[in-house]
């Protein structure tokens, strides 16, 4: 496995002796994820999300750089709000910070923290990173068009039996399977 290691490698010398543990049983992880989602429903009356947080950040930055431009755009306006509250003091922004912390804790406990690039054997690191950026851009665009990403739509809306979210979910898998053939070199 090629990996552009080095940066994180140094401080890892101690725990490097440990092999990364295998991922947990998918069904147990699923139940755990479902219970977290349920907790969000019961306590907050809302589901989980991810892409809303970057949207808030972008809206704030655009608003700082070009306030007039942002004011003429309903998309940014929605995230900036009416100015009474700080747009970054937002539930999703804090939730996403938690996601990073939670991922790090879980990864540390299982010795899975490692600076590397996940990719198939037949693709260069540079190519993989380029693809990651392109994929991320498409995902960001698509998520905004669909009013939510896999967390906000598929997971949350799926559990709520929301019509649009189920249509969305099938579209995601449809799009994925359609495109899979063309990008097989990257993964297989």
């Amino acid at each position, binding site marked *: 496995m090629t990996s552009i290691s080095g940066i*994180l490698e140094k401080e890892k010398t101690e725990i490097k002796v440990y092999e990364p543990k295998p*991922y947990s049983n*998918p*069904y147990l992880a699923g139940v755990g*994820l*479902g219970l*977290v989602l*349920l907790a969000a*429903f019961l*306590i*907050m*009356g*809302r589901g989980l999300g*991810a892409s809303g947080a970057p949207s808030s950040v*972008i*809206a704030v930055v*655009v608003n700082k750089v070009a306030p007039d431009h942002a004011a003429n755009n*309903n*998309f940014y306006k929605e995230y900036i709000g009416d100015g009474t509250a700080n747009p970054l*003091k937002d*539930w999703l922004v*804090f*939730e*996403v910070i*938690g*996601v*990073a912390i939670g*991922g790090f804790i*879980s*990864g540390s406990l299982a010795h899975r*923290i*490692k600076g590397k690039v*996940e990719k198939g054997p037949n693709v260069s690191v540079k190519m*993989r990173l380029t693809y*990651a950026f*392109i*994929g*991320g*851009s*498409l*995902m*960001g665009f*698509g*998520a905004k*068009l*669909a*009013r939510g*990403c*896999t*967390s906000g739509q598929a*997971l949350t*809306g799926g*559990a709520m039996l929301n019509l*649009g979210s189920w*249509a*969305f979910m099938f*579209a995601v898998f449809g799009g*994925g399977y359609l*495109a899979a053939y063309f*990008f097989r070199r990257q993964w297989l």
Partner: protein
Amino acid sequence: MMPYYKFNYFGLDTSLVIAVIIGIGFGFALERGGFGNARILAAQFYFYNMRVLKVMFTAIVTAMLGLFYFTWIGWLDLSLVYTIDTYIIPQIVGGLILGIGFVIGGYCPGTSIVSAATGRYDGMMYFAGMFFGIFVFGEMFPWLENFYNSTPMGRVTLPDFLGLSYGLVVFLVVAMALGAFAAAEWGEKVRFKITGRIKE
């Protein structure tokens, strides 16, 4: 009565603390499920590893059953749980774009955060790409706005849409999920026999 926040059991500041705690649980569960690894996520689309399907549908089924029974007992007012309104065509088109992005990038927004937090450079790159994509969407929004707001259907759930009882739809979803799990387990076994390739 639940949801607590909607009945003002606590204020905004407390809700943000809860956001971080729930986020930690979310990130933890995603990482445990193997969602911090692009190869596992992408394997779903090549039928090598059906983890994505298993974790996601188990989570949906768990939360869905929870919602159903909490409502039935009378502890939860489901109408106060926020759901995104349906705009069917933009959601399908967005979903297709998102699915293509999934295969190219190997992550979805939530999993890329976990991946980046566990040191994966491709996850960080993906996360950066997502900012760029959202920015492009924001800049194009004046042109997209009409399409974005087309085919509005309001808050509509599968039971409403199909004219079936809530319990029946819950039953059907669970039946579908269990069927999909059985198929996935079987498929993975067959695949392993043919290729000898071990799933992660």
